[in-house]
């Protein structure tokens, strides 16, 4: 190799790099950059799955050793709300996949619409989750050590729900203010960005209000049913039924009685662990429930942040046919969040 050859090769390296504006300097080509990012995100998903695997392990352990607790505890979870949330997440997965497709085809407006739809779904999911959490907290359903089941307290809107909603309200108002400030400053792209964020945070309230309305309807219906059962037991002089009707108002007894009849005697047989013990140990189920769904909710929030970043770049029109990697990668992450929920839903809500 001669001096000129060496110099040429060094020169070549730069000449042949018709680097696109978003191709990092250390990559040779758009394809190499895309492949690296893709493998990177798949490996990240691998770490996520192993991260969650610890919780699935704890879940399986307690379910295999204390099946009766799981049966009893799942009656506190509303499978309609859980199922609705599943469909919300599935729909957000669909819109995310459509956003990736639009980014590939460089359809700027469609990408924005699909991303906003995805973000709204994420927020609706959190809104419904907030209703579920706050309803349980009102009944004293906390993690194991603080598990203190009692009758549903508070009428109207729960203080816990308000507490969770306040940050979202602040963010909603903040984004609306930011949006109109930027519009008056003539920064159209920031206006679009913040108004989209406001729509996203609005999605939270859509979910929360919808969930709350459903919960109120369900509580009213349960009360009706309980009243009907009192009428029914009054007519039959069954000792067990009258005991039930006596405490019909307390959810504990109601649910224990409602669950598989075989479970209750089994728990009572154990001299050391009376019914009180069983109630306390339900707390372990809810420890696991809060860990799993809480960690999942954190991932949803993380996804919302990542989606907001994507949205900003989409508004600036950054995507090219050979550069849409970020949309694809965040999309993969978002589908994984969906994927984990697909397993959490039957494992936590559907136990018989």
């Amino acid at each position: 190799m001669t001096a000129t050859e060496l110099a040429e090769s060094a020169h070549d390296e730069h000449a042949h790099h018709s680097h696109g504006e978003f191709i990092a300097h250390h990559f040779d080509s758009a394809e190499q950059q895309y492949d690296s990012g893709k493998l990177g995100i798949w490996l990240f998903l691998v770490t996520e799955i192993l991260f969650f695997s610890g919780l699935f392990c704890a879940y399986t352990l307690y379910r295999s050793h204390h099946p009766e607790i799981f049966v009893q505890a799942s009656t506190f979870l509303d499978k309609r709300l859980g199922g609705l949330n599943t469909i919300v997440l599935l729909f957000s997965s669909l819109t995310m996949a459509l956003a990736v497709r639009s980014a590939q085809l460089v359809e700027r407006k469609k990408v924005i619409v699909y991303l906003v739809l995805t973000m709204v779904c994420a927020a609706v999911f959190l809104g419904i989750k907030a209703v579920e959490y706050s309803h349980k907290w009102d009944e004293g359903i906390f993690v194991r050590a603080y598990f203190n089941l009692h009758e549903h307290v508070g009428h109207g809107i729960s203080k816990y729900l308000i507490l969770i909603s306040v940050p979202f309200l602040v963010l909603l108002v903040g984004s609306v203010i930011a949006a109109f400030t930027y519009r008056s400053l003539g920064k159209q792209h920031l206006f679009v960005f913040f108004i989209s964020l406001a729509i996203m945070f609005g999605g939270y309230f859509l979910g929360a209000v919808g969930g709350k309305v459903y919960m109120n309807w369900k509580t009213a219906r349960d009360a009706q049913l309980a009243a009907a059962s009192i009428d029914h037991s009054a007519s039959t002089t069954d000792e067990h039924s009258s005991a039930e009707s006596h405490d019909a108002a307390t959810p504990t007894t109601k649910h224990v009685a409602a669950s598989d009849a075989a479970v209750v005697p089994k728990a009572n047989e154990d001299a050391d662990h009376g019914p009180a013990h069983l109630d306390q140990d339900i707390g372990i189920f809810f420890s696991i429930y809060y860990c799993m769904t809480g960690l999942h909710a954190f991932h949803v929030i993380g996804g919302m942040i990542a989606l907001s970043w994507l949205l900003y770049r989409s508004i600036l029109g950054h995507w090219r046919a050979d550069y849409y990697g970020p949309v694809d990668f965040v999309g993969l992450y978002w589908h994984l969040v969906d994927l984990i929920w697909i397993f959490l839903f039957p494992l936590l809500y559907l136990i018989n």
Partner: protein
Amino acid sequence: MAHQTSGHGNSATGHVTPIRLLVTIFVILVGLTILTVVANDWPLGHYDLWVALVIALVKATLVALFFMHMYWDKGFNVFAFLSSFVFATLFIGFTLMDTRHYQDSIREFPKSGRPDVIFPGAPTQQK
């Protein structure tokens, strides 16, 4: 080094999924969700968990294959992703293999340590 890709013009780097396929998958997923909720009320006995898990597995597979483009992805990426399930199974499987062996010791652990005793501030148990 001077390896140039065809990454210009409208030939995108990855596979573009048809909208019709994506929507079909979504409809199937919603159907399966409804099915799993309904199946929960069927008298399946001990098989209910397995029915629910199989449905979840089918749903997860559909999401991974089509929404996550795994069907068209590179073999190595698919291999990497699937290996995570192998290791998670290994972890959970080995751990659960003998937990039954020491459950009695846990049950015998002095329960005098109720939360209200151990952790001041924890609510005392309601009667």
